[in-house]
């Protein structure tokens, strides 16, 4: 344990915690905007897997990380259109169709990987970018400002999303549609259009979250995400549907995961103990959901399809 409590190891753990928080944060921000408009998407995990595979494959073939990021976003957006048609046009039950999207993404990403790649081939993932001046700060610079572009992007999206939800006419539509769609409709706000946009954006974020994970690790394998998408949904509840709360939750999960990893690397936990400690994030999820059962701030129309005249 004394190995762990040195300044350099602690700083490295913090930096890695922020990096590991990024996929959670991106996926959870996407889920937040969707839920604020009244749509639950349980398919995040599947969309993340497809985004991760898309980003990995594009980077593997072209050596362009940027193209990988774009493909991750596009794959997510396409899945958003699919989910929008299923839940809005066809009015399918949201919980069940989300599970369907998850299973579809899990199967298809593995099938494509087996057919197109076969043997796990590592790629050069995202490199760190040091921010001028800020990166030179002692301690803080190492933890916060030596990260990859997606980390910066994810954390900048937190205030951006807050701004969109609370300071734009579109955000007002989103909040109204998520609480009382009948009222929004009666004032000429299109419930369907608003939800299409939030679903599209939310799924693009999930695709990007998958890309962030694959490009950070530099590999793809079956079920690469391993529950990230589901934890992201839990984080939306933890964060009480607010971007800042979601960010706090993502950081907690990132730091716990980083600590567990560091302990394994340093041999502080080994064998069975390591496996048990490895379950921390999952146990934490359950604890979080039990403790945060107040649900203040939950959009009233969450999971409720809208039909005019009913």
């Amino acid at each position: 344990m004394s190995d762990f409590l040195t300044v350099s190891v602690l700083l490295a753990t913090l930096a890695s915690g922020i990096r590991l928080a990024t996929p959670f944060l991106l996926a959870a921000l996407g889920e937040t905007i969707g839920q604020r408009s009244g749509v639950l998407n349980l398919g995040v995990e599947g969309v993340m897997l497809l985004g991760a595979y898309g980003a990995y494959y594009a980077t593997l073939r072209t050596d362009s990380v940027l193209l990988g990021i774009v493909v991750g976003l596009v794959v997510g957006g396409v899945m958003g259109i699919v989910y929008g048609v299923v839940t809005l046009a066809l009015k399918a039950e949201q919980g069940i169709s989300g599970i369907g999207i998850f299973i579809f993404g899990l199967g298809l990403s593995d099938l494509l990987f087996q057919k197109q790649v076969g043997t796990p081939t590592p790629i050069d993932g995202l490199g760190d970018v040091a921010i001028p001046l800020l990166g030179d700060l002692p301690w803080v610079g190492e933890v916060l400002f030596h990260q990859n572009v997606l980390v910066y992007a994810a954390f900048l999206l937190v205030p951006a999303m807050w701004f969109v939800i609370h300071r734009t006419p579109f955000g007002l539509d989103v909040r109204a549609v998520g609480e009382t769609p009948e009222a929004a409709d009666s004032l000429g706000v299109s419930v369907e259009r608003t939800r299409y946009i939030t679903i599209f954006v939310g799924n693009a974020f999930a695709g990007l979250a998958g890309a962030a994970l694959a490009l950070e690790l530099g590999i793809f394998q079956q079920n690469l995400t391993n529950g990230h998408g589901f934890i992201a949904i839990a984080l939306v509840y933890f964060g009480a549907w607010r971007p800042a709360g979601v960010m706090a939750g993502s950081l907690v999960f990132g730091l716990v995961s980083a600590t567990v990893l560091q302990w394994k690397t340093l041999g502080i936990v080994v064998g069975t103990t390591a496996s048990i400690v490895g379950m921390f994030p999952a146990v934490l999820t359950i604890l979080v959901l039990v403790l945060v059962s107040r649900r203040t701030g939950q959009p009233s129309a969450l999971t409720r399809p809208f039909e005019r005249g009913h």
Partner: protein
Amino acid sequence: MEPTTAGAPLLELEGITKRFPGVVANDRVYFDVRPGEVHTLLGENGAGKSTLMKILYGLYHADEGEIRLRGEPVTIESPSDAIEQGIGMIHQHFMLVPTLTVAENVALGLPSRRRLLQDLSPVQQRIRELSEVYGLAVDPDAYIWQLAVGERQRVEIMKAIYRDVSLLILDEPTSVLTPAEVEDLFVTLRQMTEGGRGLVFISHKLHEVMSLSDRITVLRGGRVTGRTVPSETSREQLAHMMVGREVRLAPNRSEADVADARLTISALEVLGDRGTPAVTDFDLEVRSGEVVGIAGVSGNGQRELAEALAGLRPVASGTIVMNGVDTTTKTPKEIRRLGVSYIPEERMRDGAIGEFSVAENLILTSHDLPPTSRRGFLNFKQIETGCSDLVRRFTVKTPSLETPTANLSGGNIQKLIIARELSGEPEVLIASQPTRGVDIGAAEYIHTVLMDQRAGGIAILLISEDLDEVIGLSDRIAVMFEGRIMGMLDQEEATVQRLGLLMAGVSEEEERDGSSA
């Protein structure tokens, strides 16, 4: 807004027909509104008033017919088309987002001055100006959930005024207001028509219709059955046009033959859904052979009181004694077995199961008792004869005993619930909003049944927001305000005005002090 030539209609609906599977909701309806007038659309539930207005507002589409605005034919596909044409609608249920502020609710759906940025300051400013002009006290920064129902109604009016609508549809806007709030609303509505706006007022409250309308069109079964003006008609005639036959608006009451107390409530406190007291310091006694009415604006603890009496909501403190037994902590079933019946206010949520057949709903409270069941088996022969008898006695109109209850009309479902609740020959009846939303014919029948039961010696607690009903049926009337009894009046001294003041939370002493000062 410029005054238009008198007589030229602002709106004309011509030959509107709308069919739903199995019913014609609107059958070649003609309806028009002139600038500056209030044209009332009167009719029972299911007469087609709401359907007609939903067609005008773009929520439904007419199968046949034409809509003309200022003489021009228009197509209205959605609410946004209606809004664009200057039509506003105040719906029966509030169309407000509780988690948003007043200004945000008003701004919703309108373009922002700064396009992609939401700038609420001009909205707040304009709301304050309009508040002044129309005497509509609303705080633009308040959240809707913080507001009382009367204030919420003012926000709805504000939304319409802010959009400067030329035609406003009001679908039963007074159902949640106190008599004083209704008067204020009517003043505002009159002020709106002075600028040349046209108003469509939908209601079934006859005295309101008589006081507000310039013209009245009556619908029955989807057709226009009468057109008149208030000076040439009476409440009785209007009721006749609505129902199609003579209606007795006030029930016949015999002398009360009051005996011993059947329901005694002492120092009762009940908590509401949010954990705050909904009923406090509540004392009441109902004796056999009398009806005690509870008047009040909804949301003042009536629902919690009824649920506590029926055993559906825990009692925080105090006691309830029914038929001589302390029922404060008893279960709903134990309370029923003591001869207590309950007609809940939410008919389809708490009173009947829509998917169940008429017969199944009729035995819901007796299915585990002989003769309905024996040794754990339902006795279908007995159910058939017992239920046929109830359906006949209480004139429930149903194709068969197997018909799903949800297929019946509101009035018939209510009759079914009353039939079940009275089939056990109770000694105490708690009746919550027994005629809300039922047609006049069924209401008249239900009133007669309640009066018969009173004559038969049962104790009735009648909770109702309909003041005419409370005054017409009750021997004594308690007014509830914020969980307490504001005052108790005998039937002879109860008037709408006196009850209205108590409902607004003004006690009789305060009123006297106020007028002498």
